[in-house]
């Protein structure tokens, strides 16, 4: 199982940071060609990131490249150049159904040309417009390549004409909508980054809130945020203990030839067993057991 608890943004035109992107412990790194790159350097960042993916090791981190919006002159150029070095995924900003379908088509062509396995380059729509939020379900459905969604609250609140606050009440609906659609379609729901690096307490609260609504991971804008994100998304001791008991009981039931069994007076069915297995996997990956 590959966890996607943390996705770390790294500026695409900074060679020193690209070199170290893979050793910072993030589950995914997002090499950014969009907001982190000045308009006059779009061409150089694209080439640098392409070379970086081709030659550097990213260890256990998944490589995601955020291209420029497809409505700009850079977007499709980014996709064409970057896809040739086979990143794990491409993140599409301000995504619509047409965008996702359009990128999917290009990726099919490039995969064919380069001899990559078909569908191996995944897609990550970035939901950061009112339209995108209301249509997140169909955007995910627009391509089989979609493996997760990132909620971008800064641009979204801008589009909604509302104020972005640290407490985040204003994005409750957006988080719920994204999380629910993602869960319904079985893809990851990644929460918007938290921007105040000095307020650790508020940061922890923010991650907990996202997790409680059903988000499966969180984007990070600074490597220092990674450990905290992993801590919050790690299963708790009680969860681990319960999962272990479920699996033990399951083994026991198997030995005794029982199809169904109960624990603490409650029936244990397939979803509970699956959940227990996931919890144990997560705990192992987090180094907790």
């Amino acid at each position, binding site marked *: 199982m590959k966890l996607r608890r943390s996705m770390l943004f790294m500026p695409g035109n900074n*060679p*020193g940071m690209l*070199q170290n992107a893979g050793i910072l412990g993030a589950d995914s790194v997002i090499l950014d060609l969009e907001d982190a790159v000045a308009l006059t350097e779009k*061409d*150089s960042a694209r*080439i*640098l990131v*392409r070379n970086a993916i*081709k*030659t550097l090791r990213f260890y256990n981190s998944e490589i995601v490249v955020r291209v420029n919006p497809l409505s700009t002159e850079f977007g499709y150029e980014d996709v064409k150049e970057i896809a040739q070095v086979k990143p794990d995924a491409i993140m599409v900003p301000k995504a619509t159904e047409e965008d996702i379908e359009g990128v999917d088509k290009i990726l099919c062509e490039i995969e064919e040309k380069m001899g990559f396995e078909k569908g191996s380059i995944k897609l990550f729509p970035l939901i950061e417009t009112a339209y995108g939020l209301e249509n997140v379900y169909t955007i995910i459905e627009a391509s089989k390549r979609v493996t997760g969604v990132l909620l971008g609250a800064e641009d979204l609140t801008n589009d909604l004409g509302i104020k972005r606050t640290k407490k985040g009440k204003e994005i409750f609906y957006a988080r719920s909508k994204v999380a629910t659609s993602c869960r319904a379609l079985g893809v990851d729901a990644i929460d918007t980054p938290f921007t105040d690096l000095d307020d650790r307490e508020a940061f922890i609260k923010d991650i907990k809130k996202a997790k409680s609504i059903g988000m499966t991971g969180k984007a990070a804008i600074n490597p220092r945020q990674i450990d905290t994100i992993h801590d919050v998304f790690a299963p708790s001791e009680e969860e681990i203990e319960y999962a272990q008991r479920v699996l033990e009981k399951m083994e026991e039931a198997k030995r005794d030839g029982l199809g169904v069994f109960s624990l603490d007076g409650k029936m244990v069915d397939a979803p509970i067993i699956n959940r227990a297995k996931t919890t144990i996997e997560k705990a192992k990956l987090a180094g907790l057991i």
Partner: protein
Amino acid sequence: MKILKPAKAGTYESNDIYIMIQPNDNGIKIELESIVMKQFGKRIEEVIKETLEKLEVKDAYVVAKDRGALDYTVSARVETAVKRAGVEK
């Protein structure tokens, strides 16, 4: 192919290299400054030449100021500079 106009790419930040490329009459001429000149000067020149060759640039005058860039950065910056300069076929 020939470089059409002068162009620049890269920065003076550490781990980066600043490349200036200009038209030249006969062949490739490289002027390199590097903080690791003794250890990697030859290698950096080699990468610049290889990149130009791959882009089929036969004549160019390149000034490079290196701040410890790895090969992938050297070739990316050279490629960017060439694309910005435009080439005459």
